[in-house]
Every structure is written in structure tokens, then in C-alpha cells.
């Protein structure tokens, strides 16, 4: 039995970043790349299920991206994934979550896992869409924002809790295989040990092309996407009035705001 975990290498921005010349993205020189925070939790959930299982389970991490994405896949291997798969073709550049989902669904068909996990969303583009769109291309049952999960590998159903707004949970039973998007806090992701990091460095990363997955260039990139970026720009700075001065002066003003509030509410 396999659990497929879809992961993304996300980009945070340097403090002083610049836009690309065409204005449709940030210049990648200003990217600080890492494994998406949500994906750390979904990988941990898969590894926990594997460790608790009496039957063998393979945790397969998959990512769509060029070769520098190997770095996050090695992190997944070091944290307990058994295998790592990366899909890339230059035609994938510029794909939105729908196009990426088409690729992930093709990998899932190839791997035939009992369960697919993805993070609820990515910390950079925050679409909250890739996992659920993957389910649609597979025509599998699906659920989003899972904050507790009870699943035994090979079982026909799983029971989970969705984390709703305002401190409410919703318990649901679902048929398997399914695609679940995993919420922060569902577990405590482990740190990779030095030894496992070393071992991961020696493990192979399987690289697949579009052809390997019977996909064409028209399935991905702008052609396969449901939206196209026109431009990116700096948003309005907001309305915050900045309190200037050193920490003592700032604290004094803050104290005045607190006292005024207490006077008002008293």
C-alpha cells in the first residue's frame, strides 16, 4: 500500500525584492525557498500512519518543479518518505494549481496509492486548490482542511474532522482511496536527524517527464491553466499609522492608547 504526498517548494520574498522585467512575477533572485509549511504536516501524517501500520506502507513524496525542487524532496526523504518523485518539463512553467493538479493526478494513476495527501494551501500563492483539483481529475472522493484523521492503510473508509471557522469541527466518514488536504497542527512534524539527512542525500529522486505520464504540453503551462497572471504589483500599504521613536517612546504612545480605551470602556 502506498500513500502519495504532494509537496511544493514555496518561495518567500527577500525584504527588498524586485519584479521581473515583464511585471508578471517577482524576480526569482529574491526568492527564499523552502518546503511548504502545510506539506510538512501532511508528510508527517503519512509517516505516522506508516509507522503505526502492521502491513507495509510506502510513503511517496511527489513534487512538480525543476531540479532545485530536489532539495525539498530530500527533506521529505530525511523525514521519513520512502521514495521521491519529481515531474518536470519546461512546458510546465507558468502552470496554475489546476494544471499542476492534472500532473499530480497522472502521477497518482501511475502509483495507484490508497490515499493522497496534500497541504490545505501553499504559503506563497494560497490558492487552496491543488489537492482538491487533483481529486477531480482522478474522480476520487475528497475533503479539505482535515485536522484529525483516523485511517488504517487498506481500509475502505476513513474518519476525519474538518476544521471549520470559529473553533468548530465537523466529523466526516469518507470512502477510500481519497484525496485529503491536511491542516496545520494535525500532528507535530519531526525534525530530520543528521543521520537521516545523510541517508536521504544518497537516495535517488525519480524524475518523470510529461511523456512518461502520457500528458502533452497543452495539458500544462498557460494552455492548461484556469487563470493567467496579468501583472503583479505592490499592494496599497494599508492604513496603519506608524508610531515612531525608540522603544520607550513607542511604548508610551501604546500605553496612552490602552488608557484611552480603558477610560472609554469603564
Amino acid at each position: 500500500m502506498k500513500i502519495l504526498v504532494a509537496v511544493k517548494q514555496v518561495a518567500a520574498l527577500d525584504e527588498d525584492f524586485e519584479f521581473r522585467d515583464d511585471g508578471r512575477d517577482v524576480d526569482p533572485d529574491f526568492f527564499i525557498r523552502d518546503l511548504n509549511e502545510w506539506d510538512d504536516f501532511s508528510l508527517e501524517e503519512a509517516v505516522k500512519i506508516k509507522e503505526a501500520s502492521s502491513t507495509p506502507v510506502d510513503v511517496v513524496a511527489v513534487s512538480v518543479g525543476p531540479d532545485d525542487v530536489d532539495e525539498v524532496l530530500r527533506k521529505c526523504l530525511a523525514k521519513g518518505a520512502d521514495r521521491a518523485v519529481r515531474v518536470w518539463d519546461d512546458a510546465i512553467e507558468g502552470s496554475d494549481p489546476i494544471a499542476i493538479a492534472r500532473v499530480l493526478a497522472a502521477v497518482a494513476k501511475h502509483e495507484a496509492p490508497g490515499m493522497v495527501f496534500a497541504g490545505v494551501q501553499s504559503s506563497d500563492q494560497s490558492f487552496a486548490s491543488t489537492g482538491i483539483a487533483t481529486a477531480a481529475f482522478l474522480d476520487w472522493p475528497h475533503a479539505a482542511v482535515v485536522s484529525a484523521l483516523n485511517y488504517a492503510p487498506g481500509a475502505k473508509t476513513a474518519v476525519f474532522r474538518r476544521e471549520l471557522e470559529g473553533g468548530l469541527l465537523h466529523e466526516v466518514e469518507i470512502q477510500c482511496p481519497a484525496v485529503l488536504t491536511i491542516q496545520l497542527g494535525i500532528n507535530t512534524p519531526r525534525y530530520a536527524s543528521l543521520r537521516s539527512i545523510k541517508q536521504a542525500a544518497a537516495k535517488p529522486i525519480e524524475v518523470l517527464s510529461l511523456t512518461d505520464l502520457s500528458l502533452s504540453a497543452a495539458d500544462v503551462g498557460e494552455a492548461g491553466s484556469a487563470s493567467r497572471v496579468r501583472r503583479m504589483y505592490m499592494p496599497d500599504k494599508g492604513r496603519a499609522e506608524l508610531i515612531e521613536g525608540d522603544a520607550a517612546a513607542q511604548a508610551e504612545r501604546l500605553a496612552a492608547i490602552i488608557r484611552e480605551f480603558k477610560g472609554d470602556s469603564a
Partner: protein
Amino acid sequence: MSGVLIVAEQRRGELRPQSVELITAAQGVRREGDPVSIAIIGAAPDAFIPSLSLAGVDEIVAIKVAAVEFDPETVEGAVAALIAQRKPSVVLIPHSVDSFGYAAALAAKLGLGFATDVFRAQRIDGELVATRGGYGQKVAVEVDFPGRSTVLLAVRGNAFKAPEQTAAPRITAFEAPATASRSQAREFIELPAGDDVDMTGAEFILTIGRGIGEEAKVGQFRELADAIGATLGCSRPIADAGWLPKSRQVGQSGKTASACKLYIAMGVSGAIQHLAGMKHVSTIVAVNSDANASIFGVAKYGIVGDIFEVANELRRLF
């Protein structure tokens, strides 16, 4: 392809407030003469008709389904059937936990143009353009949908104001095909209120976020909160790490801090879900060392500086 279709959201017999904000969003994306329809899906959809009878709505579409509470495949099936019949140019839904569960599947299956967490939607030279955040809300991203006759937009809460005036829209019943759903909703579970604290009723909250760095620092902020008369709250990472109980978490998925009027956020960068849960607060003061932190976008006052220095100085004054 014409008309704007809104899909409202309900839970436990109550309309989700984001639903009616979409009526205002619809005005910016409709072409002249386009009708605005709002669909409500549920076991007793007619119960929601009064709260949906608002200015800007031409038609309410009541869709009766077997599932009492949200089920992704039921909603997908009903909305897909309605899109097939009406062929709207734009479909608006709330960007919410429920829509996370079905929106992308609907877009993928029907080949719709699609964007989520949209906070601005307009027509530029007749073309639909949606704006959302990128790179953790550090940039604004304008997207369009070339070649798509129907576009599905999941719209961020609080981005549009709900209409106040009532109206008398036409009511239509729509028969959705029966869906054999592969998941079954069981029950709701309330997050325990916590034995010592009521975030829902707190008027003055001091919240700590990831910026405090380590668990050992929690104590000094607890002491500061007591000294200034605030209830100590926290952002999601602090609760997830177990540094404070979940009952102290504020933001969209934490307890709704509905009574809060003064909110001081120390070392909270402002993930979108946190901001969405606190936008109603009249006075937000953000203290953060990162001048670009997105929380400054919603704060009334901003202090760019070291949270420990500011906290220490503040403590001296009470």
C-alpha cells in the same frame, strides 16, 4: 453566456455572512443587463429566502438536496447542473473552508476559469480581471481568464460590504440531480471553550505570535497582559506548538473574538486566516520587527520594532 450566479453558504440552519457580501461583488463583474441570481443549497432551502432577499438580487434559486449539512460532492453536483442550465459568465462563491472542499474540483471538471481568495473583481475593457494576494500577501496579483466562457471566483470575506436594503427577488426552485456522495457528514464538535478564558467575550486582547521565538518567553507576555488588563491570546503557530491552549487561539479557525475592540498583536505576521478573523476589531495595534508584515495592512497603529523591547518598556508604565 450571461448573468452572475452566486452560490450562498449555510451551516446549521444559518446563512454564512460571507454569502451576501457576494451580491456587492457581483455588481462589479456583471455586464449591463446581466441578472444576478443567488442559489441556496440545503435540505430546507426556503428557510433562507428572507435573509437573501436583498437589493441587487434578481432571483433566488432554491435547491433542495438530501444532505442537511455541507457535502462536497452534493454541492458540486448541484452547482454543475445549475451552471449547465444557466450558463452564467461569472460564478461567485465565498472563499471558505467549505468552498476549499469543492471549488477546485468544480473548476477542474467543468473547465472553468478559476481563481480563489479574490479581493477585487472588475471588468477592464469588458474582460473579467480578478485580484488576489501573492507570496504571503506581500504582492497583489491580477489574473484574467482568456478563452473561458464561465469563470468561478472564490471571494475573500470582508472584501465587500453586504447590501443593507431589502428587495423582493423572483424565487425559483431548481431540481438538482441526485448525487451518490462518497462521504458522509456525521456531527459537529465545538472546540472546548477552555477552563480559564473566554476569548469570545474579551474586549481587550493581547496576542502573541511566532515572533516570540520560544516557549520560555510566553510567561513574560502573560504577565504583561495581566498588568495592562488584557486577555492573552495567540496566533495559530503558538497553539499548534502547544505553548498556549487552543482555546486562546484567535483568527478564522480559532475562537471568534467577536467582542474585541482593542487588539494588540505582538510578533504576529498576519497570515490571511488570522487577519480574516480579526478584521472587525476597531483598534488593532501591530508590533512587529518586519516592516513588510501583512498585519500592518489591517492595523490602525503600527510599531516597527523589537517586540521584547517594546513589551519591557510597556510593562514599566503599568
